[in-house]
Structures are given as C-alpha cells and as structure tokens.
C-alpha cells in the first residue's frame, strides 16, 4: 500500500490511535454469565451444602465436557448465521461406530479415527448441501440429523455396545498432565484455540463477516462458501470428538447417547451471547453457557426436584440471557 502517495497534510500525526475498549469491557457479557453460574451454584448450595464441594465441582466438569465441546462446534456455525441440528446424532453415531470397530478388532486409535471420520463426513455433507447446492441449513441439518440417528441404530441393530479395550478410558480420564484429567485439558485447549482463531486469525474474522452481512462480505472478496463449509465441518468434528470422550468415560456406546445434546448445545451458545442471526458470539461465552446448563441439571438433581423441571429452568435461563442481551444493545 502506497502510503506516500496517499499521505495528506493531516495535522493530527501526533494524536495517538484511539485505543480499543479494554479486554474486560469486551468480555463483559461473558463475565455476567460467569457470575450467573456462580450465583446459581451458591443458590443450590443453600439447599444442599455439598453442591459447593470440590467433588461436586469435579462432577460438574465431567458432566459438562461433552456439551462444552459440542457447543464450541455449534458456535462456529451459528456465528456464520447458520444452524446445525445434526450434532446430537453425529455424537451418537460416532460412539456406535467406534465401539463397533473396537469390537471387530480394530485398535483404539484406528477406531477413534473412524469415529471422528463420521463427524468429518457428515459435516462435509452438510457443508456441500448448504454451500454448493444452496439448501437452507435448517433443512439440510434436519436431514442429516435424521439419517445419522437412524444409522446409529442400524449399525448394531439398536443394541448398545460395551467397550472392552482396557486402555480406552485414558482418552477421557487419563492424566497427560499429572493431576488434571484429560477431558479438562481438551476442553481448555479447544476453547483457547477457538477463541484465538475467532479473534485473531483472519479466517476466524471471516466467520463473523459472513454471518453479519453475507452480501457485503461477498462484495469485499471474502470467500463466503468456503467459510461456511468450514464451519459445518468443524461442527461435525467437534460433535464427534465429544462422542468419543463419552464412550471413553462410560466405556459404553448407546444409540441415543447424543439425542438430548443438540438442543442443549444451541441453548448453550445462545446463553453465551451469540445471536442466532449470526455475526456475534464467543467461545468463552459458549463454554459458560454449557456450564450453566450443566449446573442447572446438577442443581435440580441435588435438590431432588423432579428432573423433568430441568427443561423449564433451562428455558428460563435462555430467556433471561436473551433479554439481557437485547436490552444491553439498546
């Protein structure tokens, strides 16, 4: 860029570039969610003191791990203005494929790669149908949701499968870093990496651009189709990985394992501050949203409220989050 030819007699050479709002300010809605999570926990703690024990925190973390990872994937899709309904089915199918592979003599690693392949393949199918054929994301992912869900049954005729491998538990519960279970490491690493890419890498900014104003993005030369495609592959792969973690944890694959997770993942992303219209959202927010949902679940169980109330409480949480978001933008 030829700055010399363009330099004009600007008399404010000495005035500094205005600083961007501080990090704290930029993450203020995430902070709000974090505080809400803490408030919820404390609230439950009033009824059941054991809620605030380290043991319960550990339980919450473990229970939230699959949802956290799945939500990170769904976040990317939602930032681009799309939606992915197939993540729960991909989760289930991945578990079944992996367990089936192991039952047929494949090694742990190979079986896991096959399982991940499910996510990559279905994510790509979603991506192709949406970007190349131009079908609506809701419709496409509804189709893959149904197909993957049925395949999860067909694969073993609906039977749930046990995993015999003596080492597979290491994926989720092993400790590469002494004292810290692997699933925590995975969650942290994925969150940090994704947040970094979204904020600091051009391709990450493109997700926001495409979601915010697809026409403008196109006019500016941003590769809209490629960006959207990538989002769906990411979403499928994350859902897959979450499925692997769960299989590693309970050493069992069930065909309906992921069924309830899809709506929870979308809820987590929305609670975390993303708009379903696209263009906004953060990885940190999505994770906090997932944690909040898990905390609600945990609280309902601890207090002994009928678990069917979980849905209502979660729905209320989403409403509050969305309203706060709406009013803070006025």
């Amino acid at each position: 860029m030829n700055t010399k030819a363009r330099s004009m007699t600007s008399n404010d050479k000495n005035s500094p570039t205005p600083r961007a709002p501080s990090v704290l300010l930029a993450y203020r809605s995430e902070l709000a969610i974090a505080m809400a999570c803490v408030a919820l926990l404390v609230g439950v703690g009033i009824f059941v003191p054991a809620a605030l024990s380290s043991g319960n925190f550990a339980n919450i973390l473990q229970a939230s791990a699959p949802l956290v990872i799945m939500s990170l994937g769904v976040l990317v899709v939602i930032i681009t203005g799309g939606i992915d309904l197939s993540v729960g089915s991909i989760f289930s199918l991945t578990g079944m494929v992996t367990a089936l592979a192991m039952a047929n003599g494949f090694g742990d690693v190979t079986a896991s790669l096959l399982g991940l392949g499910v996510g990559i393949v279905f994510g790509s199918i979603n991506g192709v149908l949406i970007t190349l054929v131009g079908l609506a994301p809701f419709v496409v992912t509804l189709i893959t949701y149904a197909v993957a869900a049925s395949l999860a049954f067909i694969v073993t005729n609906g039977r749930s499968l046990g995993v015999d491998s003596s080492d597979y538990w290491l994926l989720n519960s092993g400790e590469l870093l002494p004292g810290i279970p692997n699933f925590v490491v995975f969650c942290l690493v994925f969150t940090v990496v994704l947040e970094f890419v979204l904020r600091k890498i051009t391709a990450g900014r493109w997700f926001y651009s495409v979601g915010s104003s697809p026409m403008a993005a196109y006019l500016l030369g941003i590769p809209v189709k490629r960006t959207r495609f990538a989002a769906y592959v990411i979403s499928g792969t994350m859902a897959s990985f979450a499925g692997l973690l769960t299989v590693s944890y309970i050493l069992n694959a069930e065909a309906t394992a992921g069924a309830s997770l899809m709506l929870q993942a979308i809820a987590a992303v929305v609670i975390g501050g993303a708009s379903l219209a696209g263009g906004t959202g953060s990885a940190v927010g999505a994770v906090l949203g997932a944690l909040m949902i898990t905390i609600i679940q945990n609280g309902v169980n601890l207090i002994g409220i009928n678990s069917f109330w979980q849905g209502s409480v979660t729905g209320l949480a989403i409403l509050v989050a969305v309203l706060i978001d709406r009013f803070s933008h006025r």
Partner: protein
Amino acid sequence: MMKTLIKALAVAAAVLVAQSAGAEEKKFTVAYIAPSLDIDYWQWVAHGVQQKAKELGMSYVEYTSENSPAKQMDNARVAVTRGVNAVVIGPVSSTSTPPLLAYLAQQKIPVAFAGIGPQQGQTKFTSAVTANNYETSLAQGKYTCELAKERGGKEVGMLSLPQDRENAQKYLKGAKEAFQANGCDLVQMLETKGLTINEAVTQANDLLTAHPNIKAIYGMYDQAGSGAAKALATRGLTGKIGITVADGSPATIQLLKDGAIQGIFFQEAVGQGIDATQQVYNALTGTQTTQNMALIMPLVKATDINSDAAKKVIARVFPQ
C-alpha cells in the same frame, strides 16, 4: 337348465374345497408392536416373539409405536389391514390400552401383552405376560436394604423409571413398603429421562453428592446399574455402596461378576416374548390360555451367577 345348475354347484364345491385346503396350508402371522425399539429390552422381547413364532410355524412382523399412543393405534390398524392373525404388544402405557383392545376385539384378533400390562379393569385380551413389578420390588427393596445395613447405614437412593409408567409406579410402591418394613430410609429418588447410562452416571453422582450417607442404590432399570457402578468407580467406592438392578443385560452381568453390583433381578424379556406368543397361538388354535401371567423376577447374586439355574434364567432375558 339342470346342466347349468349342476355345473354351478360343482364349481362352488371345488372353490370351497380349494379354500379349506389353502386354509390349512396358510400360515398364521403374529405382529409384535413395541412401544419403541431404541431400548434393548423391547428388542429382546421382539427376539423372543420371533423365536417362538418360528418354532410354531408363524410369520412375524414388527412395528414400533415410538412412544406414541396415536402411532400405536395406527400400527394396530396397519397390522389388521395386512392380514395379521394375532398381536403381541408392549403398550406405550397401560392407560393407552382400552381403545386398542376394543378395536382388536372387534377385529377378533387375539392379543397378548409382554412386559407392560393393560389398564386395570380391561378384560378383552388373551394374556398379559408381565413381570410382577410389585412383588419383585418387595424383594428388591428388601435386598437393597440388607446391602445398606451390611455396610453400616440405612440410607438408600433410587434411580427410577419415569413415574408415568404403571410398572414404575408398582416398583416404587413395593420398594417403599420394603424399605419401611426393613428399617431403611429412601432419601432421594431421581427419574431418568433418556434411559442412557450417561444420564444414570450423572444422576448417581448427584445422588451421592447430596446424600453422602447412602449405603445402597436401588436401580429400577438396567442402565441405572451400569451408571451407578461407574459413579462408584470414579469415586473409588466400588463395593462400599451396594447396588441392585432390575432387568439385566450382558453389561450388568459382567458388573455382577466383577463385584461392582451385588444383585440383578432378571426380567425375562425374551421369555415374556416367548410366553406371550405361545398364548396367542393357543388362542388361535383353540387351546387353553392363561390371562394373567405375572412372573416374579428372580434374583441372581454374584455367588450364583454361574449356576445352571442362573444360566437358564439368563437365557430367557436376552438373546444369547
């Protein structure tokens, strides 16, 4: 004129003979209508029905109601249209059965229940082959309480089926009575929504967090046992808290052998399918039927798991 009349009579006779001959060669068809086929249990019942049907020379068709009473009625109609002769059904719920039974009775199709019975007061059915949930639960509740006391406490927790199901309600009733009679406290009961092991693990964990003095867990369904066992394992409490399970599967059998759970009350899924099929066959062929076959679920402990008696029981639980 006379000639035509004789010809007509001859044709008629021939047709009648042909029809009855054909009737003897015609196979019966039995339809199995499952409440849903995404649960192992109902697949095992299906296996039993199919196995017995084959043995008796009947054709087999299968439908799933996807947990919807409307779909269930639909399935019944489709079965009738298809020309099915008998129905073995696991209903979506007991309350959904009256219109179904009325319809099938009108169509003169014998129907037998497997696993879940009809609503109280219904009579128009051939047989109900169910587990006697109440009696079984008295036994399971008692045993669970014993396990707790052996481990120095009297608090027990429960992982339950959804309480809108009649079998779940009966289980609960029996269990509560047993706990009370034997001096144990049921401190918390959590109902499952998805019937997955994953959910059971979380619920078991939360049970124990809220009530650290629980010394035994009553699992009303198979996945509850696997889930509770896993929860104990992560806390290093295997064996220190007793677990009993209803239903039984290869997974829980293994856990029993490993000492992670202490008792399984086997529900003979396959057996129910077999017996229900036999009942409708009897109805079709005019032999005697038994309307109420409420089977007690036998308890198998780790010590008896390898006995012949146990093996016989297990054969009627899931396909080998």
